[in-house]
């Protein structure tokens, strides 16, 4: 049962009459509280009457004199002495004791003065948790995981939309550096952040939302390349009120998401639906099948700003003799044929993929689905140094892809079916520029490999549009100022794979957001909001309960089914599973 509290406000004139009233009704004196509020003191007299607490409140200025209540309540002398000593209040008529004959001291002077509390210290803010630090797009990860655990799915969706416009896509293709930063990764059970993102996107559905666009600013912006970087920049600039046009050479938007990521990782229907939904929300014009042949003439068409995000679409050559053999295919070319044109080329029974990146894994798994029975991946270093994400490697292995390490191609020997290629064994030497040990060939260890098709997947090169004015570096990437993403031409910005070399979808989205922020400020706007460490109370988790929960596994297609078709391999979380997984989060952004 709560104590009943009654508040009574008085001013100096009716303080003593009120006290007399209370004494007549036999209230008991409890104590006096004083608080220094800066300009004046707030004094509260507490009384008790019949199990109710009565607060008599009075505001008194710093130089005013407060009459003492010891005439009515002689036992109040202790409390009044206290506030007189501590807060330097003037109280008139105060007895130092019960009014006895002793200690008739006159006014006492202060030699100690307690410093009043001057204002309250501000609360500390949220910390940027490790998962949010690792995300290249800067999504507020702990926040949306917490919102999912509280079953607020729409708000979680909006949190993701602040930094990345494609949650359904990211929930399927992102390599999730956030999960590597999760503190629970030490125990082998990081929170499945990517699958939670996919759950939210699927739950809310892919549709056009009612988002308020800012007022039209009248500025025209052109974006070259409808990949993740370009589309993200288009979305945010469109929401800020600019007129945006996106140019792309492929018939459908998506860039590398459309051309290189196979159907079983990202169904084309979902890609198209999400891109269209977001572009409709931002009112962006998409001009497809329009390749920009000459950038210099394009720049004269009078756009206020241009963002180049054409990506990296050229294969790296092996540099060995005989590499133009028709059965030695380029990985990107193969993926384009399958994804863009919908063809199903016959690769034969035995396929060898050279390379260890994510494209190599994609090529291997696509070959399995195109009818190959024996697919091997040859990589020149060991498994530890493979740049492909661990999840891709595991899924490829589960489907039956074999791996050979420490081998590199040295010559194409020819033949028609099967084709022979010579490989040489490598050993690991001193680290090279990327920090990984450089492979060195072991002389005399050449061996021949026969296969129906060889696929080269050793890397990609940036493809900037043809230009004479834009400065490119020796690898073909556009040179930009790393802070402002501006090229050597004023008003022309660049970002994504074409600047950094091949990277992931999430990094491109991060670059797109950054570019939108910079371009808007360049055109006189206020830009986008950065990561906010708001003053919200993050309720602390119940440690004992949380430590007993274990990771919720996601349902996958059975292995035999997977290679028979291009259907999606991962089946996502149900509502129950998602909430259970989100409740496991340790809320590392908690701070007090």
């Amino acid at each position, binding site marked *: 049962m709560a104590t009943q509290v009654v508040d009574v406000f008085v001013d100096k004139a009716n303080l003593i009459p009120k006290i007399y009233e209370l004494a007549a009704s036999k209230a008991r004196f409890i104590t006096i509280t004083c608080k220094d509020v800066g300009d004046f003191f707030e004094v509260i007299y507490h009384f008790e009457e019949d199990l109710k607490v009565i607060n008599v409140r009075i505001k008194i200025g710093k130089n005013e004199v407060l009459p003492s209540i010891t005439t009515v*309540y002689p036992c109040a*002398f202790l409390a009044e002495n206290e506030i007189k000593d501590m807060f330097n209040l003037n109280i008139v008529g105060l007895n130092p004791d019960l009014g006895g004959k002793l200690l008739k001291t006159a006014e006492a002077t202060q030699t100690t003065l307690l410093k009043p509390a001057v204002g309250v210290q501000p609360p500390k803010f949220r910390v940027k948790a490790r998962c949010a630090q690792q995300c290249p797009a800067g999504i507020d990860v702990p926040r949306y995981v917490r919102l999912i655990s509280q079953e607020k799915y729409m708000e979680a969706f909006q949190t993701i939309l602040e930094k990345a416009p494609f949650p359904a896509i990211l929930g399927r293709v992102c390599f999730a550096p956030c999960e590597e930063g999760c503190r629970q990764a030490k125990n082998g059970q990081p929170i499945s952040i990517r699958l939670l993102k996919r759950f939210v996107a699927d739950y809310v559905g892919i549709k056009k939302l009612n988002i308020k666009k800012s007022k039209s600013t009248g500025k025209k912006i052109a974006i070259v390349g409808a990949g993740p970087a370009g589309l993200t920049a288009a979305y945010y600039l469109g929401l800020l009120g600019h007129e945006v046009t996106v140019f792309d050479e492929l018939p459908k938007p998506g860039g590398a998401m459309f051309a290189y990521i196979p159907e079983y990782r990202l169904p084309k229907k979902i890609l198209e639906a999400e891109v269209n939904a977001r572009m409709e929300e931002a009112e962006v014009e998409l001009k497809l099948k329009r390749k920009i042949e000459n950038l210099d003439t394009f720049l004269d068409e009078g756009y206020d700003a241009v963002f180049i995000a054409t990506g990296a679409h050229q294969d790296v050559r092996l540099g060995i003799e005989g590499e133009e053999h028709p059965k030695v295919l380029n990985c990107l070319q193969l993926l384009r044929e399958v994804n863009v044109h919908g063809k199903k080329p016959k690769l034969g029974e035995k396929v060898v993929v050279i390379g260890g990146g994510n494209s190599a894994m994609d090529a291997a798994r696509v070959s399995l689905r195109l009818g190959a029975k024996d697919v091997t991946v040859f990589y020149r270093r060991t498994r530890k140094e493979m740049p492909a994400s661990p999840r891709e490697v595991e899924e490829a292995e589960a489907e039956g892809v074999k791996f050979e390490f420490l081998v590199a191609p040295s010559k194409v020997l020819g033949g028609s079916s099967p084709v022979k290629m010579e490989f040489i064994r490598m050993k690991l030497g001193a680290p090279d520029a990327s920090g990984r040990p450089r492979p060195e060939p072991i002389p005399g260890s050449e061996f021949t490999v026969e296969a129906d098709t060889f696929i080269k997947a050793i890397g990609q090169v940036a493809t900037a549009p043809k230009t004479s004015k834009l400065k490119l570096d020796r690898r073909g990437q556009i040179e930009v100022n790393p802070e402002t993403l501006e090229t050597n031409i004023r008003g022309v910005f660049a970002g994504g794979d074409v600047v950094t070399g091949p990277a992931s979808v999430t990094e491109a989205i991060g670059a797109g957001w950054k570019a939108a922020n910079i371009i808007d400020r360049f055109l006189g706007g206020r830009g986008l909001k950065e990561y906010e460490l708001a003053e919200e109370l993050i309720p602390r988790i119940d440690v004992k309960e949380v430590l007993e929960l274990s990771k919720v596994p996601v349902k996958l297609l059975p292995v035999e089914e997977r290679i028979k078709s291009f259907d999606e391999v991962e089946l996502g979380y149900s509502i129950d599973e998602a909430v259970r997984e989100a409740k496991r989060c340790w809320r590392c952004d908690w701070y007090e």
Partner: protein
Amino acid sequence: MKLLERLKDVGGVIGMSEGKTTRKYTIFPFGPQHPVLPEPIQLRFMVDEEKIVDASVNVGYVHRGIERACELNDYQRNVYLCERVCGICNFMHALCYCMALEKLVDVEVPERAQYLRVIWAELNRLESHLLWLGLLADAMGFESLFMQFWRDREIVMDLQERTGGNRVIISTCVVGGVRRDISGQLAEHFKESMLELKRRMDKLAPVILKDSAFKKRTVGKGFLSYDDALKLGAVGPTARGSGVAKDIRLEGYQAYKHLKFEPVVEKDGDVYARTLVRFYEVYQAIDLILEAFKIMPEGKIAVKPEKWPEGEAVARVEQPRGELFYYVKGNGTNRLERVKIRTPTLANIPSLLAMLPGYEVADIPVIVLSIDPCIACTERIINIRKDGRR
């Protein structure tokens, strides 16, 4: 002349004229350090040969600035600070603070936690009363009774260590519930210890109830009338020994609303009455604990708060010595703006000053101890005289 001035300050001879005759009174200080007092407090008595004429008090020797320190920490760490206001009644301070804060952050404490809090509160009360009974016996010079009471108090201290974690400062109360649970074998041991304690109290009861030497030193001393107790704001056993039937536990905070009991009241108003009140409260506490164990439900023991504290709240708890009062003010951030603690000893001091005149100097220790002074709680005032000396 100078010697006389100095004597007047410290204690000495003073001449006062009352009408036509002049009487000579002596002023002497009692404390801050005195073998009988558990904690430092200075009382100054004006005596006429052996009879006390008047008394005045000077507190503030244990001022630690806890109220100010509470404003600098955030509100959940403050529990550990507020506990250390007093060592003997530490759980009550933590409990009162948590009750006040739970009103500010709007959480509902689960049932089992409420019962557990009552059990620990009554355990603290047992410990405090046993300590006081020992101290009273020691003040009279009855040392063997003092030792006996403190030996029986060891049962309680061991229980506190077993269930709470520490012999003195239990530290199990947090905002939203309690930190530990008492169940299973520990609960059985608890109940057996309580019955053992009851048996030992039964053995010592004849000394308090019937011993003539004990009675001679306590009956009729330190009289506080019913009207005085009401007017001067006495609380706790000091008031209940004079016939005022006031017990904050009747308000029904925490699990007291489910337990049936009545406040122990005596009518005589002297030191013996207060001793009896505290002695019977020992039995009452044991009964309350056993009953709480019987009707305690299962469930969670803590709830996490979801809001910053905002607003003002007042909480009162029945400490072994009386009514503990906490006033807490928060302003929407995680640090509090003002915490005001009013401990029962502070409220009983005016009653002490009223019940002293008329008795002899040899009765001073017994009368001062009869209000159960826990000066560590009082902690606040510094009376400074004009020339800068205390």
